[in-house]
């Protein structure tokens, strides 16, 4: 026979102002099975919790209902109090009479009645609750870091330095990401490569880090603490153990006019190439799409010149399998072009370039050795126009968000340009200057006041070419919308920062959510910024939203701290609110008929197939089985099961029906 205790909280005046709490408690005391029913001003306070603990002991309660706020607030508090008094914590439930009742209704008889109904419903549920126990799962103390940009590098180093092993996977032939492409960094103007390359080398040399470049994630199975991943190591067509990185192959390669990805298309590379001099690892790859041998069947120059005979034309992709306990997605961003709106002439005029292309022009390691030369004719640009929000913050262009980094890098570009071409003219067209960050506003002011960059508040409507110049038609909205035409040699667009190529596909592989722009979604925008909704998978850097370097590095360290925190436990506890498949004695074994509708319905891939065998090992029946580590307790399988063979622990069909019948 159930012995249930009901505890009605006033929550100060939050509940008692509209609900007659004493009356609720009194009504409930008359419900069969309720042996104790009281109200109190603050149930969550220490005396309130003591009331619950004492009642459990004195009245030998088998279930507890606390009528108070949302279970999101205090369920852990009251369940702990029950556990202290020796009651299984899953025999304690909360009736939400605050958010669901007192806050949303006027004071009236009906409000009190509704509160009573909410409590009655929970009493009927608790009457049918079973004791549950947290699920324990082991932890593999190796982290997988996806992406070798500054975010991935920081996260990998932090985790590795805490003593755990890390597997880093980078899609490109070298780690370094976009930061390696940058010339100088705001707001200090220190050389990007100078601060990044030591970290890249550290990753390569760290005993706890295994680096797989030119590799991609193939698949992920498993759950927090126990992921199994497959990594596709793409064929470099080089024997890395023999290659010394001498560079002779690239020097002799006859295919020299391929647009370089590292130089954002403003420079060229060969078909066998190392993306940049400080690449880690310093081993070339063969770009088979552009290699004469792969395309036309002849050449093999690299093979002939290689002093260590390291070229392998017949090399194939390999798949590496690994067990990891946590995954950090640090796959970064891409800079969108502007060809999707034609009025700026991007793609049509070679001297209209993106910010990333300007970085390469301004970089000492770039195709012009740091001189600001026009891509069209190689002359020094005497007038340069920088345009912010080229696509961003414009619903008509389909990108409503702020790309965040452009205001700062355009100020930096204009400043770098003025430092290189003293007599040159630099204009920045802007909507707002968003310089929120340590020393950021000062940096922009410096560009305007010390380096005399002309900032014009207004949008550019059109860019067209006339007599070898680019005519930039804009307006100065601070001078009454006066139209302005600037005849420029070079136009730099602060184009939108967008999610990396393949972000959607990766998110689906990882089973993490993403926003409409394919940036990965954090579990909570304020309180859980580096976690995803899938336990054990964390986020770092611009794969989540546009970010600059300081923010990316902070977030990467945050993600690393989460991973290290996870790895500090020998096993993990999980809520036991999971689905279970009905099992019974032979010859039925289970109500499950093995249709596996549940398998395709499960969003977490938690349904497995279990073979029931006799003593000779013959398979008698195949039934569904829920992997307790993966199941999130969503209940989709329960709703779909045609024979009602699956039930959700803590929310069984019987419990839910009883709740409804009680109304």
């Amino acid at each position, binding site marked *: 026979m159930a012995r249930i205790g009901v505890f009605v909280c006033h929550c100060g005046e939050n509940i008692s102002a509209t609900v007659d709490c004493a009356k609720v408690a009194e009504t409930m005391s008359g419900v069969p099975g309720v042996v104790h029913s009281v109200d109190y001003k603050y149930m969550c306070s220490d005396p309130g919790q003591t009331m619950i603990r004492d009642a459990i002991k004195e009245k030998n309660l088998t279930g507890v209902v606390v009528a108070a706020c949302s279970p999101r607030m205090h369920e852990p508090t009251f369940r702990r109090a029950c556990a202290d008094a020796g009651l299984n914590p899953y025999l304690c439930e909360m009736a939400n009479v605050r958010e669901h009742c007192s806050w949303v209704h006027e004071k009236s008889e009906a409000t009190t009645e509704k509160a009573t109904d909410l409590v009655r419903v929970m009493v009927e549920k608790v009457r049918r609750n079973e004791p549950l126990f947290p699920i324990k799962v082991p932890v593999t103390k190796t982290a997988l870091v996806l992406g070798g940009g500054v975010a991935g590098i920081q996260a990998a180093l932090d985790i590795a330095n805490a003593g755990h092993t890390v597997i880093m996977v980078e899609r490109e032939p070298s780690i370094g990401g976009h930061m390696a492409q940058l010339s100088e960094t705001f707001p200090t103007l220190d050389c990007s490569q100078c601060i990044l390359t030591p970290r890249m080398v550290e990753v390569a040399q760290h005993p706890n880090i295994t680096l797989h470049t030119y590799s991609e994630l193939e698949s992920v199975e498993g759950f927090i603490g126990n992921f199994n991943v497959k990594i596709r190591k793409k064929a470099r067509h080089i024997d890395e153990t023999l290659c010394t990185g001498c560079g002779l192959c690239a020097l002799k390669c006859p295919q020299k006019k391929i647009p370089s990805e590292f130089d954002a298309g403003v420079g060229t590379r060969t078909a066998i190439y190392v993306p940049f001099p400080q690449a880690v690892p310093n081993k070339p790859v063969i770009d088979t799409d552009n290699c004469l041998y792969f395309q036309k069947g002849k050449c093999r120059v690299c093979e002939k010149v290689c002093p260590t005979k390291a070229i392998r034309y017949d090399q194939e992709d390999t798949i590496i399998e690994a067990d990891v306990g946590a995954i950090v997605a640090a796959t970064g961003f891409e800079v969108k072009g502007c060809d999707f*709106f*034609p*009025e700026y002439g991007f793609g049509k005029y070679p001297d209209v370039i993106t910010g990333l292309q300007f970085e390469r022009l301004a970089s000492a390691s770039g195709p012009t050795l740091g001189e600001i030369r026009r891509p069209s004719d190689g002359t020094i640009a005497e007038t340069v126009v920088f345009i912010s929000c080229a696509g961003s913050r414009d619903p*008509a262009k389909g990108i409503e968000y702020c790309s965040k980094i452009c205001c700062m890098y355009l100020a930096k570009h204009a400043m770098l340009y003025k430092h290189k071409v003293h007599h040159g003219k630099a204009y920045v067209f802007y909507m707002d200057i968003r310089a929120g960050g340590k020393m950021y506003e000062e940096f922009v002011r410096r560009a305007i006041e010390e380096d005399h960059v002309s900032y014009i508040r207004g949008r550019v409507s*059109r860019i*067209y*070419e*006339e007599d070898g110049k680019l*005519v930039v038609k804009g307006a100065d909205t601070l001078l009454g919308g006066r139209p302005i035409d600037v005849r420029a040699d070079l136009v730099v667009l602060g184009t939108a920062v967008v999610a990396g190529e393949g972000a959607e596909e990766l998110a689906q592989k990882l089973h993490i959510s993403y926003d409409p722009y394919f940036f990965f979604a954090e579990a909570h925008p304020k309180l859980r910024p580096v976690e995803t909704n899938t336990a054990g998978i964390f986020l770092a850097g611009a794969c989540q939203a546009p970010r600059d370097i300081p923010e990316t590095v902070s977030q990467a360290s945050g993600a690393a701290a989460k991973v290290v925190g996870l790895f500090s436990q020998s096993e993990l506890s999980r809520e036991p609110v999971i689905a279970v498949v009905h099992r019974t004695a032979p010859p039925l074994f289970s109500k499950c008929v093995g249709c596996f509708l549940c398998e395709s319905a499960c969003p977490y891939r938690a349904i497995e197939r279990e073979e029931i065998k006799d003593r000779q090992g013959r398979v008698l029946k195949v039934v569904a089985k829920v992997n307790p580590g993966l199941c999130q307790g969503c209940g989709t399988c329960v709703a779909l099961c045609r024979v009602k063979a699956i039930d959700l622990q803590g929310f069984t069909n019987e419990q839910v029906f009883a709740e409804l019948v009680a109304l």
Partner: protein
Amino acid sequence: MTMKMGFYPGCSLKGSSREFNESLCAVMDKLGVELEEVPDWNCCGATAAHNLNHALSLSLPARILALAEGAGMQEIAVPCSACYSRLVMTRHELQENEALKAEIADIIEMDLALNAVPINVIQALDRALEGASLESLVVAPLAYKVACYYGCLMVRPPKVLRFDQPEDPMTMDRMMERVGAEPIDWAFKVECCGAGFSVSRTDLVAKLCKPIVTDAVKRGAEALIVACPMCQSNLDMRRCAIKGMSEAEAHIPVLYITQAIGLALGIDRKDLGLQRHLVKVALPRRAVVGA
């Protein structure tokens, strides 16, 4: 077989831009399309109505739409860009707002289902050419460099019209290619011509039209191609008000797209109304390579 198409000429096509009407009818006739005027049509309200009275600016086009519906027309060809804009915008606004639609229907005392769709001249030509190849109908390829000028209203507002790229439209250019012309890449195809200010501020219209004509000529165009009576009259009629023009700038003709196509289809110049232009349409005969 003759295909029938609803047709709303508006005031310009009956007056100052008679040649647009003549050339459209001639081309459509050649393509086997019979244009059927909306019975008892009225003024679209143009620029005047929507500056003065919102209900009036919706009621005038709404009546036209209702009349077209009543005549069983599914599509109405509306060659004038201003008329087209007013009809499309009215239909859109009333579709979005049931209460307003009821109010307007009440004012015009007619049923309003909004199932007659206004289409512009390019869409009308496309419709007429469905299943036929324009290239194969060409008898005298228009072997000239042309600058297609779209003006403002044919592609704007993009959210409502969803026709072509608003900042770099190409539909006219592509149609010109099909009749043998060489459309140039130029910078002023959607700049403002000054529109209705032609009367009140001729000086402003001259100022706005000058760079359009200058850029077209500078980039080698031999003719400007338009699809709007306002654009045509401003560029054609106000040439004398533009100061400091070169010989070539003063003489570049402004043709309606229907006239240009009509020439390529071998229709007589008179039937296309070419003699009505102020800037003489004196395109030299030119042999086409391979023709």
